[in-house]
């Protein structure tokens, strides 16, 4: 039974990271029906920023949670700025263009950012410091879950609750939902659609950056390429749950995480990806809009 729970928690951790990144895909899709392929790169840039900031802070002699919080703050702000500008540069001019054009623009942005980091930073695997402090009382859980996993789970749960409140009850959330339902109508009713779109990109990027920091301190290394793999998986999670739906992204992320974990645990880790994508195909055959996606659903 311990084995089952070990796999369950491993899948949960992995799935909640997928969910954090998938939220960015799904929110952007919900509002402007664009698959933002550069989203994985924002995740990677967030992790790199945190690495640089924490290295500098550690050199000045700071330690412990202060480094984590400061690094996370800077990374989130910096990555959000990236998300914001990417939208302004690559997507906004194409808003009235055929749907394929912004998609290609997004793919181009993704390749550009990846190679930019490769050239400006490194092609190597720089070690990422373990920013999440060792909490002694969590050590008792260590056969089942590593202390960093506990922190990842708590943080993502907390963030998702905040996000739900933001979307459901704040003025900005209301504007976002209105834009998602009908952009033209929202515009006619005085919603500043451009600002709403910018907000969406900023929130999505902030979530991705947080995911980047959490997973990088969990696995202890980063690389310019991590955004691509995480991005593909998170995109899969978003589609699985029904792209455009926020609870769908979370559910899709968790299901994907569990599928991978149990497939690796009970079958073979050779077939981890095979099972993950087989599941995606099956679900899309049965429910083409994804688990929680509806034909003309409330997308946010």
């Amino acid at each position, binding site marked *: 039974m311990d*084995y089952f729970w*070990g*796999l369950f*928690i*491993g*899948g949960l*951790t*992995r799935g909640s*990271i997928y969910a954090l990144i998938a939220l960015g895909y799904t929110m952007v899709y919900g509002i402007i029906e664009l698959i933002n392929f550069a989203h994985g790169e924002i995740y990677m840039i967030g992790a790199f920023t945190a690495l640089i900031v924490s290295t500098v802070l550690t050199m000045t002699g700071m330690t412990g949670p202060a480094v984590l919080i400061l690094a996370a703050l800077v990374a989130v702000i910096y990555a959000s700025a990236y998300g914001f500008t990417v939208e302004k540069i690559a997507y906004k001019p194409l808003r009235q263009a055929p749907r394929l054009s912004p998609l290609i623009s997004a793919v181009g942005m993704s390749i550009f950012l990846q190679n930019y980091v490769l050239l400006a930073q490194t092609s*190597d*695997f720089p*070690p990422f410091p*373990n920013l999440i402090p060792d909490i002694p009382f969590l*050590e008792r859980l*260590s*056969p*089942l*879950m*590593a*202390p*960093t*996993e506990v922190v990842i789970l708590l943080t993502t749960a907390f963030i998702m609750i905040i996000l739900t409140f933001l979307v459901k009850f704040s003025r900005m959330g209301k504007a976002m939902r209105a834009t998602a339902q009908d952009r033209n109508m929202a515009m006619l009713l005085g919603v500043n659609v451009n600002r709403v779109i910018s907000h969406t990109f900023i929130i999505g990027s902030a979530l991705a950056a947080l995911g980047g920091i959490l*997973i990088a301190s*969990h*696995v*202890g*290394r980063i*690389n310019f*390429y*991590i955004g691509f*793999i*995480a991005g593909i*998986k998170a995109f899969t999670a978003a589609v699985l749950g029904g792209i455009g739906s926020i609870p769908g992204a979370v559910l899709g992320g968790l299901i994907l995480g569990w599928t*991978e*974990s*149990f497939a*690796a*645990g009970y079958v*073979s*880790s*050779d077939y*981890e*990806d095979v099972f993950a994508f087989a599941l995606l195909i099956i679900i899309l055959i049965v429910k083409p809009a994804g688990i929680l996606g509806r034909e003309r659903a409330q997308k946010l």
Partner: protein
Amino acid sequence: MERHYRIIFAALLSILLTVKIAPAADTIKLGVAGAHSGDLASYGLPTVKAAELAVKEINVRGGVLGRKVELLVEDDACKPEIATNTATKLISQGVPVVLGHICSGATRAAIGLYNDAKIIVMSPSATNPELTQSGLYPNFYRTIASDDAQARLDVDFSINALKLKKLAIIHDKGDYGKGLAEHARKFIEASGKAKLVLYEGVTPGALDYSALVQKIRRAEADGVIFGGYHPEAALIVSQMRKKNMWTFFISDDGVKDETFLKVAGKYAEGVYASGPRDVSKNSLAIAAVEAHRKAYGAEPGAFFLNAYAATMALLNAIEKAGAIDYIKIGRALKTYSVDTPLGKIRFNDKGDAIGVGFSMYQVRKGAFVEVR
């Protein structure tokens, strides 16, 4: 009368034959075969230079069995079909020992001919495991570790030095990692001393490997042999240690890397990794490289030290055998150790050099330290 002529003619001929052999007996012929032209010449030419330098050194000191050593250099361009001609030519010239061939394919093509002619062949560079392990070529020796040497070392070390009974093999599905894993699996199953409890490939670059770590725990493995490179190894080790698993971790040359130490940090401590033996402090190696610089004004090329060691081993064995005799030379190669640039070597029953190739290293206080 007719018959007498024949006898006399035959006698004359045989006298001619002995007369022809007599001056040749003054030198000991060492055949050197390998790629000396074509696009793989850079693999073969350093061996020629090594043989020249080693032989010069030995001739200055009086040669072997009181006779000078003479080199017969033949090109096989690394092509199996040419290698058979090369071998035939060397055999007809009466060489007792051959240094070569360079490429595994060419060696394989030529080795049978030498075997039939009872000629000892020693390659500085052919790494194909079959050449020695098939047992088909008792005349074949080599001064380089075979392709499966790392896997053998990892398994032997786990079973004999660490006394592990239940082993897990993990690989990264790549050519290098999976190749090592396949060999390791074969050796574990053949040894009969340890059980293989888990054999799995992982996807390089995955977010984490927690499911795999749980699986290793459930399999109750007391050692993990990992075939692959340092990014995945660092991740797997860190996650095992974070989950309080102190299972032995034994890996390969792809992990014996500074980056592994940096990324895995404190979790790297105690990890074993095999890597090429360090010969930079061997005085014979230093001298051989220095002689090469002096003679050719350049740094030596590929397999130079292996070829130098092979030449020394062959000539030493002839000296020890006391005669140019296939069986005696073979026995000498397996009995007497000789100091070479690769360290002290002799050969096992299969023809692989003992003491050449890989060593086991362990991470101690943040650095790889040679274990034995």
